[in-house]
């Protein structure tokens, strides 16, 4: 499978603390990569470094063989990154449709066409009937879907999902899992940080396990869940 995204030797330091140490990953189109690890393992930091929202100490990132290491976050978006935020960040003063419209305007300049694109994305995530509602009024599950819609409306090649399953009730979780699978079915490369193992095991083609900023295991979901170092990292040792 040809690589869409490659990150080599990513290291992030905060002062004297190394939050992510020399982690590499690669991702092909239609592939789902799960990033797991105990709290404080550096998952979100790695995620932010790759998407350009946290400064890197060293490492190299390529998107479709183009070096994007030095590019700011918004330029990475323009080249094909879409991301959600762990704590949903809708533009609260605006309606649901306007929220997605902002993202749609990245690829479409004309308002009527951008609105059409935004509406089709809202239909895809099941929020079309809420389009005219203020974003502030959405409940958690719908805010998650709005985050997804915003990430999809930039027409990304790689989508980064930061704990979009957390806190969802079982039916909403099932829907979300099915939805993420459909994204990879459309050829999108998916990188997801997730705590819900059910989702990771069902969806991931490949899993990377982080602990204390280091990659301690990688492989298929099956392989990593049996890995002793992983069990140790999650449960601790006596």
């Amino acid at each position, binding site marked *: 499978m040809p690589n869409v995204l490659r990150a080599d030797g990513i290291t992030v330091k905060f002062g004297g603390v190394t939050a992510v140490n020399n982690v590499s990953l690669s991702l092909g189109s239609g592939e789902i990569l799960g990033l797991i690890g105990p709290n404080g393992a550096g998952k979100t930091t790695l995620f932010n470094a790759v998407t350009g929202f946290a400064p890197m100490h060293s490492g190299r990132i390529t998107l479709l063989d183009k070096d994007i290491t030095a590019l700011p976050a*918004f330029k990475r*978006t323009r080249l094909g990154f879409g991301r959600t935020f762990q704590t949903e*960040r809708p533009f609260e*003063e605006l309606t649901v449709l*306007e929220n997605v419209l*902002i993202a749609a305007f990245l690829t479409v300049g004309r308002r009527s066409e951008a609105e059409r694109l935004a509406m089709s994305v809202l239909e895809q995530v099941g929020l079309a009937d809420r389009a005219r509602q*203020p974003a502030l009024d959405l409940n958690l599950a719908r805010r998650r879907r709005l985050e997804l819609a915003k990430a999809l409306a930039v027409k990304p090649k790689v989508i980064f999902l930061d704990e979009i399953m957390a806190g969802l009730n079982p039916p909403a979780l099932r829907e979300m899992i099915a939805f993420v699978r459909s994204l990879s079915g459309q050829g999108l490369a998916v990188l997801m940080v997730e705590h819900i193992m059910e989702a990771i095991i069902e969806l991931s083609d490949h899993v990377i396990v982080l602990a204390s900023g280091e990659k301690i295991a990688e492989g298929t979901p099956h392989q990593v869940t049996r890995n002793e170092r992983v069990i140790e990292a999650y449960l601790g040792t006596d």
Partner: protein
Amino acid sequence: MTKHLIGLGVLLAVGIAYPAIFPNNLTIAISVLLFAGWATSWDLLGGWNGQVSLGHASFVGLGAYLVAIGQSQFGLAPWWTMAMAAAVAAVLAYLWGWLTFSLRGPYFSLSTIAVAEILRLVAINEEWLTGGATGVFIATLPEPFGVDLFSRTAQFYMALAFAAVVIATIIVISRARFGYQLRAVREDEDSAMAAGIDPTATKLKAFMLSAALTSIGGGIYGIVLAFIEPHVIFALLLSVQIALTAIIGGRGTIWGPAVGALVLIGAGEIFRTTFAEANMLIYGILILVVVLFVPRGIVGELARRHIRRLYAKRAQG
């Protein structure tokens, strides 16, 4: 969109008829219109983009001085000097924004106070150009198509055209991609970047356009005053008044700044004539009431209630 265009039509219709109906109240109307235009320009940056400037007097002064100096020293007609003022204001805004927009928090606002102060000192000290502390006087003006630009009626129509052009600009921008980029940056810069928006570039564009528009109004103000003194035109009070007009009327709304101008400048005039020395007190109380009870400003609060009502109705039905 349509209702805003109708609003603009009403403004123009009332405006065109105004001098014939109230020929003795032109000066106050000119003030209201100029403040409406300035506050709306300010709001492009302060309301729609969330970057509060306390230095917009800089651009008013720049426009006024360029028109006055151009006329008195170089015999340049105001329309040329106003175009120059818009360009100079945009360049000044670019340089200032480039230095300060990487700072998050209140630093941009604080730094804008300094711009007007620097320009004031330049105006006082570069006497050969600006007439120093005594100021510049416009003694003659060209008469395009036989119109006397010193007449209050002509000045009223210039102020009306200025306010209408600025409001029309906001109406267009509010619906366009740029308007949404402005709001996205105001609401959340990280989220904006995730949508591919460059926050700094967006703020720079907003600041430049806001400054250019303000300076054109400043040029008209120069003609209205005919006598420009540095401590009046570059005063912090003027910068604060422009910001307050927009904030009280309603930040980030199309008509808020214009309504603010009508209330503040109109009321200010009534207070001044009725309450004499007590007028600043009442002005202060008015600001306090708005900040405490109508934090979104007059139009902002009305718009919000309207949306809530519509939405509640739909949720019931």
